[in-house]
């Protein structure tokens, strides 16, 4: 067991990593228009400062002996109700350290990029405020030492995602997309809250140390339930099947948002959750199997959808869905796969962010047109973007020595360690990845010009291209750095566990087969889209293409299963309210009115009628007196 190191020395600044972007968000959002001129710069500086501190933390953590790399800092005693105790306490260990580095460094680069990308937007101060809010919330999520604080960060990133997807709120499609993302996320959040409740009931505590220490004591049924609920939460946040419908719509947001949130960080929160809760999944085999299945389905879904989209961002979003599917798939494999899931997460974060920012650069040059059918032959015009995009491309399809090769092939190897069938499936998906990414670069950078009449493609300013270059360097070298310069497997092993199971055939065999399949996929893509002319109007494809264009009918399914029944239920309630409840209330009114109308007739205005009723009353009084006297 690792010892807990108190937060002293450099580690005392742990809370500052979160506080800086939080303060930035607070200032930018509440100080208002006064900060318009220097607001964006402040937003950038806070995240850069957090990145610097994170690097210092990494160096300090590397200095610690391997068994003493868990730093816990209790910032604030938060909820202490009876036996339920949750502190605002931060835990920095090997797992959260890599996430913190990913979030702050990639986040800083994207903030710098946004200075250029959003320079024409009148609301950019708000944009940077929201981005800072997101960074702060994500940091809370990964640095939390208990599930409740993690939930706070979880909700915070959900909120930031909503605000940022719907940033251009005057566009109805953007507002609808933001709503859709939030609602689908919410379904996952229900899973997380139920899981937390179940954890508390089972283990009596929600702190990671306590829960994972006792994980093997609980019954397998309970642990399976917890695992499935956590999987639901992860599916919602990471856009896995069946909660995947929101990710493609989320591309309505500005491109830096897509890069940071929907590629590098937020969508990886689900993987973080599963990896962090590895003790639970190790003890519940069925839940882990469910994770593998979900991941596998999503890998193929994302790949197929990405192959048919003409919108460059949506194609990249399908790719993200697929790659996170790989991560989830690997995490479900157990200790043989956790480290590779995190490894792929890190490399994917870097190269996918680079790809998205590159796409943003292309869009910037093509008047914000996202239709790849109107691109073509851009490599001559946008040189830096082309080179950096190619670096990301080679990383994602897994060509050595780029980053993606190291991480993805390890996942495929781990798949074969478990079961040959899923291994083959993983290889096939890699082939499809090669296909659709080649399609993308062929349509965008190669081939003939298919530009619109008013398009004047040009290279982006350096404030945008410098982050692209940095990320491209990462795409190229990060994989090797994490394996050979510092061993990621050894680094993460104390937290998530690692074991290696021998496979029937040597590792190099699987690597070779993967590379061949990938290159075949790339050649098919090249032939179809670079050699042949790409029509400017999308042709009616076969049934699979049409289905893929409709997101594999994901929206239709959601509509039938969830939306329509909810509408029906709401209609029934409304009808009940207006007919029964309102009817009853109105009936009391009309009843009183009717009664009054009938009673009114006694007011005839005739003195003699009134005298008659008086005599009647006197009669009754006399009757009463006589009866009392007689009894």
């Amino acid at each position: 067991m690792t010892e807990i190191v108190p937060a002293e020395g450099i580690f005392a600044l742990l809370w500052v990593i979160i506080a800086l972007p939080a303060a930035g968000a607070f200032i930018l959002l509440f100080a208002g228009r006064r900060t318009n001129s220097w607001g964006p710069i402040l937003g950038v500086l806070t995240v850069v400062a957090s990145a610097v501190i994170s690097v210092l933390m990494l160096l300090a953590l590397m200095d610690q002996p391997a068994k003493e790399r868990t730093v816990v800092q209790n910032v604030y005693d938060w909820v202490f109700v009876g036996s339920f105790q949750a502190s605002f306490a931060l835990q920095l260990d090997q797992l959260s350290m890599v996430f913190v580095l990913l979030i702050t460094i990639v986040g800083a680069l994207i903030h710098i990029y946004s200075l250029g990308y959003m320079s024409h937007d009148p609301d950019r101060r708000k944009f940077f405020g929201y981005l800072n809010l997101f960074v702060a919330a994500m940091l809370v999520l990964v640095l939390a030492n208990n599930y409740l604080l993690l939930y706070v960060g979880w909700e915070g990133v959900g909120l930031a995602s909503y605000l940022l997807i719907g940033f251009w709120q005057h566009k109805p499609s953007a507002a609808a997309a933001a709503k859709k993302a939030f609602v689908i996320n919410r379904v996952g959040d229900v899973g997380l809250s139920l899981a937390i409740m179940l954890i508390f009931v089972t283990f009596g505590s929600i702190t990671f140390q306590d829960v994972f220490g006792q994980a093997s004591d609980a019954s397998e049924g309970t642990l399976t339930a917890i695992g499935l609920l956590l999987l639901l939460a992860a599916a919602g946040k990471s856009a896995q099947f069946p909660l995947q419908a929101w990710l493609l719509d989320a591309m309505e947001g500005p491109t830096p948002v897509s890069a940071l949130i929907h590629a590098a960080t937020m969508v990886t929160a689900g993987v973080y959750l599963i990896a962090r809760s590895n003790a639970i999944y190790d003890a519940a085999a069925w839940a882990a199997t469910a994770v593998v299945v979900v991941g596998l389905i999503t890998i193929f879904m994302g790949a197929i959808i990405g192959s048919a989209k003409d919108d460059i961002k949506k194609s990249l979003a399908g790719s993200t869905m697929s790659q996170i599917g790989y991560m989830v798939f690997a995490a479900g494999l157990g200790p043989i796969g956790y480290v590779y899931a995190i490894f792929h997460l890190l490399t994917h974060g870097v190269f996918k962010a680079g790809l998205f920012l590159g796409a943003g650069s292309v869009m910037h040059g093509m008047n914000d047109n996202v239709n790849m059918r109107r691109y073509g032959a851009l490599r001559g015009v946008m040189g830096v973007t082309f080179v950096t995009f190619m670096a990301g491309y080679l990383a994602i399809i897994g060509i050595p020595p780029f980053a993606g090769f190291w991480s993805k092939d390890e996942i495929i190897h781990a798949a074969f360690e478990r079961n040959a069938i899923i291994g083959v499936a993983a290889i096939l998906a890699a082939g499809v990845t090669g296909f659709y990414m080649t399609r993308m670069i062929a349509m965008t950078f190669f081939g003939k010009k298919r530009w619109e009449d008013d398009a004047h493609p040009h290279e982006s300013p350096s404030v945008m291209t410098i982050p692209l270059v940095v990320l491209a360097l990462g795409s190229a070298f990060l994989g090797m750095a994490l394996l050979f310069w510092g061993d990621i497997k050894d680094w993460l092993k104390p937290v998530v566990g690692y074991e290696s199971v021998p496979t029937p055939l040597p590792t190099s065999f699987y690597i070779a087969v993967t590379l061949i399949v990938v290159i075949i996929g790339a050649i098919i893509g090249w032939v179809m889209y670079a050699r042949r002319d790409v029509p400017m109007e999308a042709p009616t494809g076969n049934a699979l293409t049409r289905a893929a264009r409709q997101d594999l009918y994901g929206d239709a399914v959601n509509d039938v299963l969830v939306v329509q029944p909810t509408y029906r239920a709401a209609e029934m309630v409304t009808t009940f309210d207006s007919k029964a409840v309102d009817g009853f209330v109105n009936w009391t009114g009309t009843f009183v009115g009717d009664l009054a109308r009938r009673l009114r007739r006694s007011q005839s205005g005739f003195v003699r009628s009134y005298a008659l009723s008086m005599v009647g009353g006197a009669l009754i009084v006399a009757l009463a007196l006589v009866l009392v006297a007689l009894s």
Partner: protein
Amino acid sequence: MNGGAVGIGEAIVFWVSGTLAVIGALGMVISKKAVHSALFIALTMINLAILYVANAAPFLGMVQIIVYTGAVMMLFLFVLMVVGVDSSDSLIETIKGQRAAAFLLGVGFSILLIAGIGNGLMETSSTGLDAANAAQGGNVEGLAALMFGPYLIAFEVTAALLITAAMGAMILTHRERWMPKRTQRELSQERFASGAHPGQLPAPGVYARHNAVDTPALLPDGSASDMSIPEPLRVRDDIRDVDPAEIDEVRQLSADSSGEDDGR
């Protein structure tokens, strides 16, 4: 003037007067003409006065006759004269069910009261007023002792009430004069302007030999004046014919008298 028990004489008086009182009451309710109702209730009141006297309350009996029957009922009659005969005297009932309900309630009420009284009072004894009347030396003195003793304040208040009532009646029936009072000149001008006969009608039988109401007066030229006959007779054409001999006689007389005097 009895003691507690009811003697045979009083019993007879009770049954006779009581019956007459009830007949009077019923007659009042049932009569078609208002004046008849007034007379019936006067009958009832007088019988009630007799019953008061029979109950050793002579002062009250006399006051009943003098004040109630004499003053109040006469007041009623005066107002009846002012109001006159009205369509409201018709006995057709306009409010549906009123008559039946009234009858039912009234009879029920009386049955109830009789039952109650019968239940309570039939066994009690009666003390009689001999002692009370003798205590102060007479019924009037006894009443006076009570009225100016314990009931003095009630007496004074009732007096104030009477004054107020009288003032109220004056105010209610006061007619405000909106225009200046028409002078005698205006009245006589109106009379002549209307074209009707301005003066008094001649009395019947003037210059005729008979002064029966149905004999017309004779005008100077000897013709009969129909206007002198009261209208009821005139309408019936019940006019006595005048003897022509008498008409000549009248002419003669007038010629003689005109010869003596200076032509008239």
